[in-house]
């Protein structure tokens, strides 16, 4: 295939969305059952309603707060354990089975345990996000720091950088940044899933809470109107990190 210009890609995307929306609208009219498939117009009306009543902004800010808190905790834990694993083979072999298990276990399966251990309030919800997001961060820190170029460590030391801490910040982390950001991007995607799980399976709140409560009332148009900002949030945060990655122009 020929390489496509940015403009062409944009055009394709817009056409794709239009076609999708038209098919949706037509089939919704034909089906004429707004419980199963509400028409686009009804969803937009519901979205507008959510916006002007302020429900959406409240829900969105709760969700973002939860997501950011979760990602910060996950990054902190990921860094400490990741650095440990990078430095010590023993730590790696001791922790690896649990981390792999955690990586493949759906976060939702752990919700009952989180409920018992951390309650259904904010700590519990943050814990769910952390469980979802921590492993990719941890592994990227571990591999990023392990593979850090020995040559550059020599360079830094020979020109007067002293001590492991200074080397960590001046060289190792900086050199590993592309890998770290890739891990963070993956973690953010999983964190959004964890966030939605936490908001629907613990105490209701945020966007997840909106979806769940409108779902329970069979107001499908409002359900769709709430899913949309959730997806946009996910896409937004992931592409933000992607943009930061692309700015590391040395690779």
């Amino acid at each position: 295939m020929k390489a496509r210009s940015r403009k062409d890609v944009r055009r394709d995307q817009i056409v794709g969305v239009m076609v999708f929306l038209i098919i949706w609208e037509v089939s919704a009219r034909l089906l004429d059952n707004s419980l199963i498939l509400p028409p686009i117009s009804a969803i937009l009306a519901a979205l507008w309603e959510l916006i002007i009543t302020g429900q959406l902004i409240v829900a969105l800010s709760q969700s973002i707060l939860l997501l950011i808190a979760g990602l910060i905790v996950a990054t902190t834990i990921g860094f400490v354990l990741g650095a440990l694993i990078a430095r010590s083979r023993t730590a790696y072999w001791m922790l690896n089975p649990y981390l792999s298990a955690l990586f493949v276990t759906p976060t939702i399966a752990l919700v009952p345990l989180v409920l018992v251990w951390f309650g259904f309030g904010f700590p519990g919800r943050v814990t769910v996000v952390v469980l979802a997001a921590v492993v990719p961060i941890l592994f990227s820190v571990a591999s990023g720091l392990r593979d850090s170029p020995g040559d550059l460590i020599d360079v830094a030391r020979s020109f007067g950088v002293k001590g492991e801490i200074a080397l960590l910040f001046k060289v190792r982390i900086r050199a590993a940044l592309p890998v770290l950001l890739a891990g963070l991007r993956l973690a953010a995607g999983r964190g959004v899933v964890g966030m939605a799980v936490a908001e629907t399976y613990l105490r209701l709140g945020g966007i997840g809470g909106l979806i769940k409560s409108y779902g329970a009332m069979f107001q499908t148009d409002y359900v769709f109107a709430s899913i949309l900002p959730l997806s946009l949030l996910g896409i937004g945060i992931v592409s933000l990190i992607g943009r930061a990655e692309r700015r590391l122009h040395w690779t």
Partner: protein
Amino acid sequence: MKDTVLDIPAIELKGIRKTFTLSEDRDAKTVLALDGVDLKIRQGEFLTIIGPSGCGKTTLLRIIASLILPDEGEVIVEGEPVREPGIKRAMVFQTFGLFPWKSVIDNVIFPLMVRKFDAAEAREIAMKHIRQVGLDKFVDAYPHQLSGGMQQRVGLARALSTGADILLMDEPFGAIDAQTRELMQEELMKICQQEQKTVVFITHDLDEAVLLADRVLLMSRGPGRVREVIDVDLPRPRFDYDVRGHETFVKVRAHLWHELRNDLVEQRAEETS
């Protein structure tokens, strides 16, 4: 000024021994990399080191730079025993060792920033050496935008910016194409002569070893020892006449090749028996 202390060697190595352990196991194999190296390197001298692959050249240079410590023996720099890297020694790396996320100027300025120089002063010093290696147009470029030869110029400018009297170079032109290499050899000789640097220069290239050197140190195949130190009595500057045709050049080169070849032949014989 320098003349008053000229009798103190720039670098003195006393009985350097170094053993490496090959893995983390307790009963792991060990490699004796350097087996008692004694050497005096004079101030302002250009010393090249040549020897079979794996004979411990890099190890020796890393010990001189205090990047690693010897198991036994001492490194003495301008009369002072040293145990960590210092401002009097600067390294140039075979793989250039540039930070890919830093621009040319930020790479060159790095040693000065680490040593807490005033930013404006540091920039001025760095710029001077970037000009000296002819990269003024690439001050804000990033390493991946430069050719290998240009990258090594940055590496050289960085080493010069430290103001160190001693340059430690591990096959600095090994990864650079032949024509660029010749040019850089010439430039390096010019700079070192102007600034009276003491240079320890590792190479695999016989011509390069003889061309640049005041003395050539020939190491014997592992465990590394000093096999021979040879004076190269060729007039300087060496690039404005046909050095390679000079009688001394031919003689020294032939001698080195003979010795190196013997070493390799012996090794092959031991391996096959």
